[in-house]
């Protein structure tokens, strides 16, 4: 009698162990799938991490043409040189990355009061056909 009870107890414990293992495997699989889905969302460039995607809000607008300028032809104004090397570095990036910065916004309100069309307009007023650049003083002021 005692032997049968002992066998039942052992079988019960084995069943519990199997159930625990299955549960753990299911949890690990769910975690792996969750990470994969999040990673894929990031690659698509959406705002999935915040749950908000603003792309449709700006779909009606057309990007302004923003040709790159030549740093060698830039005459640096005092409002840049006096502001220090970090500010100059930002201007340099803007001058040489018109193709990227034409798609980056500014949030200071300049779109309304200065009719700026992108972040670059706070830095670069004009790139002439010869590559020389007219800078805008708005960024550091």
């Amino acid at each position, binding site marked *: 009698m005692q032997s049968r009870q002992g066998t039942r107890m052992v079988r019960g414990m084995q069943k519990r162990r199997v159930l625990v293992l299955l549960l753990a495997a299911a949890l690990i699989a769910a975690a792996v799938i969750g990470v994969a889905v999040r990673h894929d969302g990031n690659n698509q460039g959406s705002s999935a991490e915040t749950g908000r995607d603003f792309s449709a809000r*700006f*779909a009606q607008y057309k990007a302004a043409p923003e040709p790159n300028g030549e740093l060698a032809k830039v005459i640096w104004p005092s409002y840049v040189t006096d502001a220090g090397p970090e500010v100059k570095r930002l201007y340099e*990036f803007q001058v040489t990355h018109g193709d990227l910065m*034409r798609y980056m*916004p500014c949030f200071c309100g300049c779109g309304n009061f200065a009719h700026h069309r992108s972040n670059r307009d706070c830095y670069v007023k004009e790139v002439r056909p010869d590559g020389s650049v007219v800078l805008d003083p708005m960024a*550091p002021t």
Partner: protein
Amino acid sequence: MAVTRAVIAMNKQGMAPRQIRAAIDAKYANLIDQATPTPYPPA
């Protein structure tokens, strides 16, 4: 200037332009009504 700083950092990390724009908008979501009329980079 904070936007440009952030764009430079993300560009350096190798993020795609559309990813960078999405991250910028997410960071400044509370100011989105003041944003310039700037479209997203093509997908």
